[in-house]
């Protein structure tokens, strides 16, 4: 399969010029020597450091990472806005970058004229813009305002028009930088549909985003950048999971997690009970136990039984554990603990506490912990799972090795969201505003 993008050892070093002051002065340039020699960089900042990847034609490629990890720099390199300092970069076909919507708009002239100029700027001919004009305006839903100066547009209208032009350039490679955050939910959905159409037509897409749900839903392949280096690459689910774990618990969690997959032990003694009620203090990720009973696999499932890492508040969540007993036993307890990202215990329980009496465990088994409605506020959460003896001796204890994210319509605070409703009577009138659709994952 041929590649739309090939990047080999790509590096970008930003230069900061001499004289720490922000404004350069001619005087200093003249006093210290010639103009050009003074443009030699003194300090450098490495935004991208040897990133290698390739994107096959027709693939949707996601780039994730924290702020400042080099995502946007990578996109600018792909767009050709800046040149790589080192390495090789090959991009085939026409590129359209949705980096800032409507970046080239002039406020004083009409939407119509701006569409024309923006289209030409993005590489269309005048005739091509004219041919697509109706479609662009219809997509942006701006038929009534297209002859008004752009300065009278709301920011949503502005972004819509910018997106409409950029998407109708019909590029071979579409670069998207977190631009779908603008506009209302209905328009975001429309944009996603359009991007979906792009995928079906076999165009290549590179998405830089913080929306991990979007990445998991749309991307075929994900690159995770950290401090300018590629630290993860491959299947979206796996990379996003690793990233979430890293974000939730820092680097230690990532290491622990990697070890957790391989049979590694931490020296730390087991905590008193599953759920670790003492946690919040010295909460550390890890895995320990003699593995007489082993928790071989843990999955988080949604209502339809699909594995997910991002849930909407109020949704059901099922924790499924594949358990393997090396020898048959009658002394076993399964436990689950739920923590916030900073280690505060949210909930902990086990089969013993809930009065289940173990009768037999032999060979392969599956244990499910079903939460009817995940009443948590937005945030990242960590999970403990454990199998141990009734006296607390661990078989297999996984501490904080699994994480998931909860998204929410409501920006409420705290940890737990009790089921509740508001009611009003007497001289108070309230109207509930229409609530936007949130879940990007549901078709």
């Amino acid at each position, binding site marked *: 399969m041929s590649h739309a993008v090939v990047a080999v050892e790509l590096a970008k070093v*930003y*230069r900061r*010029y001499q004289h720490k002051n922000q*404004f*350069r*002065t*001619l*005087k200093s*340039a003249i006093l210290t020597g010639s*103009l*050009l020699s003074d*443009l030699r960089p003194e300090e450098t900042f490495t935004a991208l450091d040897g990133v290698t990847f390739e994107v096959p034609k027709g693939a949707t490629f996601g780039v994730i990472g924290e702020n400042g990890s080099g995502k946007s720099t990578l996109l*600018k390199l792909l*767009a*050709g*806005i*800046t*040149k790589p300092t080192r390495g090789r970069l090959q991009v085939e076909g026409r*590129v359209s*970058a949705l*980096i*800032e919507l409507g*970046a*080239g708009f*002039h406020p*004083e*002239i009409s939407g119509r*004229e701006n569409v*024309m*100029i923006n289209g*030409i*700027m*993005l590489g269309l*001919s*005048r005739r091509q813009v004219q041919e697509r004009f109706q479609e662009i305006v219809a997509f942006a839903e701006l038929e009534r305002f297209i002859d008004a*100066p752009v300065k009278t547009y709301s920011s949503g209208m502005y972004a819509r028009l910018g997106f409409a032009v950029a998407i109708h350039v019909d590029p071979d490679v579409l670069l998207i930088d977190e631009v779908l955050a603008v506009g209302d939910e209905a328009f975001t959905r429309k944009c996603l549909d359009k991007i979906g159409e792009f995928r079906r037509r076999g165009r290549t897409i590179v998405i830089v985003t913080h929306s991990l749900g979007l990445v998991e839903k749309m991307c075929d392949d994900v690159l995770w950048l950290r401090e300018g280096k590629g630290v993860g690459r491959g299947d979206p689910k796996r990379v996003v999971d690793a990233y979430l774990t890293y974000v939730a618990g820092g680097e230690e969690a990532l290491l622990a997690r990697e070890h957790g997959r391989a049979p590694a032990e931490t020296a730390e003694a087991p905590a008193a009970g599953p759920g670790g009620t003492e946690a919040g203090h010295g909460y550390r990720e890890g895995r320990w136990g003699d593995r007489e009973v082993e928790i071989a696999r843990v999955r988080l499932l949604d209502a339809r039984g699909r594995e997910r890492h991002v849930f909407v508040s109020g949704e059901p969540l099922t924790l499924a554990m594949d358990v393997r007993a090396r020898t048959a036993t009658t002394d076993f307890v399964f436990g689950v603990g739920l923590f916030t990202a900073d280690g505060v215990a949210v909930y902990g329980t086990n089969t013993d506490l809930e009065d289940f009496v173990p009768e037999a465990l032999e060979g392969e088994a599956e244990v499910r912990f079903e939460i009817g409605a995940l009443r948590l506020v937005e945030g990242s959460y960590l999970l403990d799972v454990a199998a141990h003896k009734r006296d607390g001796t661990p078989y297999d204890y996984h501490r904080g090795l699994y994480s998931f994210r909860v998204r929410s319509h409501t920006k409420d605070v705290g940890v737990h969201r009790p089921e509740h409703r508001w009611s009003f009577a007497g001289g108070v009138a309230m109207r509930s505003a229409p609530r936007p659709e949130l879940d990007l994952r549901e078709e």
Partner: protein
Amino acid sequence: MLQELRTLLRYRPLIQSLVARDLVARYRGSMLGFFWSFVNPLLQLLTYGLVFTVILPGRHSPAIEPYLLFFFCGILPWTWFQSSIAESAGVLLAGGNLIKKVLFPAEVLPVVTVFANLAHFLLGLPALLACLAYYGRLGPTLLLLPLPLVVQLVLTIGLALLVSALTVHFRDIQSILAHLLHLWFFASPVLYFYGDLTGWVRQLLRFNPMTHLLVSYQQILFHGSFDHWRGLGASLAVALLLFAVGSFFFDRLRDTLAEEV
């Protein structure tokens, strides 16, 4: 330099659209609209006319009578030059969003500035031609007008490229430029007649490419006979050199532009 030309040719439709946008946007909201391109030089003419015919009268040679008409022939192309250079200083900084966020050949911006000001020049030209016709000075030499115009275009673009790219790194150029251009104005034969100059002043002004351009305009439009071929040729040489230097500098600084604006 050739590559620079190719880029500019390739982006011709974009330059056209941006020039049109510039013109439309500049006068949007003003009552006179495009008429301003026409009125501006007339008002300038009136101001200098008031100073040099009423307040300081009788200081010019008979070769340049009527003086206001002579002045008009020089101030129009000079305004094109001066506005282009002055505006090109800030044009990359103002268009920073484009350079940073869109794949955009930055040299388009200063070039658009030069062409937009050329449009103002051309819009003001009918007023000048009307005045020349009134004094019965419209002659066949008018056909030579494109010559100095093309030379000036090359010269102005070259300088605009240089100034715009350097200003990104040395912001003080913006401040000093107004004064330099003012000095340059008085060191160019707009207000006075180059033919009257003698001695070292004349020698000095010979090195000013704008001198020969202005003399060419004045001969073609005002005097109705053109013999300044050598001067115009020298200006062309300087213009080409400046264009080469301008595109060289612009190219050298190109990669830093997106980071510095």
